[in-house]
């Protein structure tokens, strides 16, 4: 498992759109490294013959039937909008560069 150093913390912060002060990055690198080090104790166990578990609960996939329910009233959907125009949420202009 890769070590958590300051550069790694800064990269993750950028992906997460977080701004860290220089001393915060330093402190978090140490804290995250300690957490991961703790979890890494598990790596000492031999798990070669054990099937990976995707979930702690032995459940079958829960499904719902394809039935539409009335949507939220638009006023309620928009209740928390910091800014709106008609029924649209309004955000600072973003460039259309990613869609899928």
């Amino acid at each position, binding site marked *: 498992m890769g070590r958590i150093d300051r550069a790694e913390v800064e990269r993750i912060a950028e992906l997460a759109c977080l701004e860290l002060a220089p001393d915060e990055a330093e402190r978090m690198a140490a804290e995250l490294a300690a957490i991961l080090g703790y979890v890494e104790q598990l790596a000492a166990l031999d798990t070669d013959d054990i099937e990976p578990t*995707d979930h702690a609960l032995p459940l079958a*996939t829960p499904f719902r039937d394809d039935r539409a329910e009335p949507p939220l009233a638009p006023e309620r959907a928009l209740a928390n909008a910091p800014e709106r125009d008609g029924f649209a*949420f309004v*955000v600072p202009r973003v460039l*259309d560069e990613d869609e899928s």
Partner: protein
Amino acid sequence: MTAAPHPTYEVVIGLEVHVHLRTESKLFSPAPVRYGEPPNHAVHPIDLGLPGVLPVLNRKAVELGIRAALATHCEVHARSVFARKNYFYPDLPKGYQISQYEDPLATGGWLEIDVPAASAADDAYVTRIGLTRIHIEEDAGKSIHDAAVAGADRSHVDLNRAGVPLLEIVSEPDLRSPAEAGAYLRTLQHLLRYAGVSDADMERGQFRCDANLSLRRHGATELGTRTELKNLNSFRFVEEALAAETVRQAGLLDAGRDIQQCTLSYDPERHATRVMRVKENADDYRYFPDPDLIALHVDAAEIDAVRRALPELPEQKRARWQTGYELSDYDARQLAESRALADFFEAVVAELGGGARAAKSAANWIQRDVRAALGERGVEIETTRLEASALARLIALVEGGRVTAQSARPLVAELLDHGGDPEALVRARGLEAVSDTGALEAAADAVIAAHPEVVEQVRGGEAKGLNFLMGQIMKRTQGKASPGAAREVLQRRLRGA
């Protein structure tokens, strides 16, 4: 429009298609799937990513995904996993999209495509394109950047589309020309409609395409650096964009420069691709299994049930028509292409009494006249007013000698545009075939008198002069002379009887 193969480079294309599944409700929420609603009129707290909500998977979406996988010969996996794809964008309120990553629903299929001839010197051909994978994911909302709507420094966000079930269908880099890419997309669109998986309407955003393209020298085995074309919103633009990107990359390579991995958009007005952004390092979406959802398990019995419920698909129809109706491979392929056209063909055959002979007539008329008229108008059969029963009646009128094929053919376009009863149309236009002996004798005599030298040749045993004289009779009767009767009369008059 299709370009000839590039002299130096082989074009390598892979396509990623996103299709909306035909469900009533969203993938993880009970909000309705609706198009053309005012903004934010079809949302549920789950789609808004409000705190405390839990996604619950729509069974129908999984069933439709399996249907698509079976229709494309993919292997459906007993276990697949929903993962979070993390990125920030205002139309993605949760900050992640629920998708499938390491363990997709299905992998390893193929699609057979018919590629039209690039020019008169080429042949049409059939080729098989591999499918890498099919996975299920949710759609994002829609951002509106149009300054006229949102203002110069604002964007609007509409979340009606957020959470709509999508399939992502990824092809192998098996496509070798823009024309193959176009054929692949058309085939896939028809197939998904056939199987009832999606309405696949591009204008509604139900069928969207991204394309990867790279070049390599002919004979090379390693792939070149690829670029990605995004948001291509019509089949024509896909082909044009790929042709334009081929030119751009070939120019760089010819100049000894490297291709930089990047995302491009296509500007149809300039017929050129434009770099949107350069990929610094591979996109880092920090995928991980969604802790709100457990793995999706599909057992063999469920897959079998979906398989049994599949409607007859184009390849099965083709096989049935080729053996049962003795249709040519070419006719069978073209007629089976869209479900609406296939249904129309079968309805005409049934109206004509069924069997190989009826099928041959129906195929001839549809291939020759109906498809030409559809092509001229740029429409599909289901949006026209042509009824199968009307075409069948027209064919029956021709085969019964009531109207000549020559007179009847222009009526196809008329029925297509306005509908109506072929028999009434024939009568109203005075198109009934002339088999009245007196009228035919008069026409034959006039033709014989006008072309004494041809008559000499025919009497001397030259058969091709006879066709010329027949043509002249047709001309005199405005194409209404019943060919059998006219030939008989002509031959009789030539003998001087």
